């Protein structure tokens, strides 16, 4: 029986019914949108009340480059723990030229993972734990190998950082990329000595040993560089924690041009930029990108 066979009253009834159904669907969509908005507002208010305005968008890459082995290791804490403990990210770069590079970087990362969750407000204790890890590596490998370590801990719009060696913690803010951690290389000592003599510092860069590490995980009684006070973070800040394979291939200034609208896009852009360079002796290159956003909606 077709629609035309229905009586005019039935037709009107069906049309009204159809209109009612459409109206109900529209209402449901409208109400659900309203509910979503309300939930978002509530979450936003909660976030403001807790003074917890920055959310972390995280991505990473982990590439071998043109080396035989991957000697970088990395660790990112679970994002599920972000509200309670923040996020911890670290990269360890096994020292090339020494035995056990990859083994030690993995060991370091495993040991650091065991530290989590760490007390955000006592960076001195954390630095001491890193020093002890280095002591254990020293005992086990007797300086036959070593690794660098860079570690960041983001918690409630603040950043703590820890560094041993010459890997990088880069803060990108307002289109300026700044390496936060000092490098523990021999050139730093040469620069200091030259400035004490009132000289310029070309010699420090010409010295063949200038890039040699004066401290690393696996050395005895190391100096851990760390933030004694957490740095305040702002909406849009990007933190790149990476091995020197990244910064040897692309400069800090050029990193600015690789910023995407998400951590994933930024990580992808950096990785592709290094790959495009196609350096014959490209070192392992690994990085963890953390983008801080005010709201994650």
């Amino acid at each position, binding site marked *: 029986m077709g629609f035309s066979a229905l009586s005019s009253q039935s037709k009107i009834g069906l049309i009204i019914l159809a209109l009612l159904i459409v109206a109900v669907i529209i209402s449901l969509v409208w109400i659900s949108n309203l509910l979503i908005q309300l939930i978002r507002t509530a979450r936003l208010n909660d976030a403001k009340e807790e003074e917890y305005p920055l959310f972390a968008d995280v991505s990473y890459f982990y590439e071998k480059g043109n080396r035989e082995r991957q000697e970088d290791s990395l660790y990112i804490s679970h994002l599920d723990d972000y509200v309670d403990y923040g996020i911890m990210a670290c990269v360890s770069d096994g020292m090339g030229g020494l035995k056990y590079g990859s083994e030690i970087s993995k060991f370091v990362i495993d040991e650091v993972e065991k530290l989590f969750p760490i007390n955000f407000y006592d960076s001195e204790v954390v630095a001491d734990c890193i020093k002890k890890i280095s002591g254990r590596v020293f005992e086990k490998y007797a300086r036959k190998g070593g690794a660098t370590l860079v570690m960041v801990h983001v918690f409630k719009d*603040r950043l703590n*950082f820890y560094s041993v060696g010459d890997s990088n913690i880069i*803060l990108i*803010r307002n289109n*300026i990329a*700044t*390496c*936060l*951690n*000092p490098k523990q290389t021999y050139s*730093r000592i040469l*620069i*200091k000595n030259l*400035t004490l003599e*009132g*000289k*310029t*510092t*070309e010699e*420090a*860069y010409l010295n063949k040993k200038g890039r040699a590490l004066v401290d690393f995980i696996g050395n005895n009684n190391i100096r851990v*560089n*760390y*933030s*004694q*006070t*957490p*740095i*305040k973070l702002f909406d849009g800040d990007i933190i790149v924690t990476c091995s020197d394979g990244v910064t040897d291939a692309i400069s800090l200034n050029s990193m600015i041009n690789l910023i995407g609208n998400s951590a994933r896009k930024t990580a992808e852009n950096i990785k592709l930029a290094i790959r495009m360079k196609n350096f014959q002796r490209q070192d392992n290159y690994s990085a963890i990108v953390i983008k801080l956003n005010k709201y994650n909606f």
Partner: protein
Amino acid sequence: MIETYTFSNNGGLEEYNDEVFVGFGSFTVAVIVNGMNDKEMCRRVSLAVNRVLSNDFESMSFDDMTYLLSKIVKHNDEYAVIRITDTEIEMEQHGGTIAYIVKDGDIRQVTNGLLKIDNEDRIICGTERFFKYLSKEAVLADAISSISAEEWMDYLVGRISDVNMLKGDNLSAITFIVRNTENVRIDS
């Protein structure tokens, strides 16, 4: 107690025309003169500063000190005068210099006037050329990761060196760290 470290380097040039003066007493007074573009000005301000510091500067108020200086220097001379105690900093800048304070993990520029400071606050004042290659974030990161005023300066000088090997400009700066004596830790 105020921990202090000064840095001055001629940047490979024949002459060093800036000046950094520090006077210690119950408070610390520092004067930085940006003299690279005007040697005569630097001499004039240096003379004035020496005259002020050789007097009993501790009995002088900051206003008296800056007034005395202003009578000798010229209107467009570039210098900064800082008076710093454990609890406050007073500053008067006359162009050509920049000062920052690092406090609670944040950094901001210090302007003329009086500012309250706390234990572990870190302050740096230098010529504009010293800060030419330093981002605010670099100054901040080095401040909070250094264990002394000297180390903070070393880190910053290292950054400048990485850009220009300290060639081409006179460089002058002074770092301060507020150390309340009861909080000073002595490592064995």
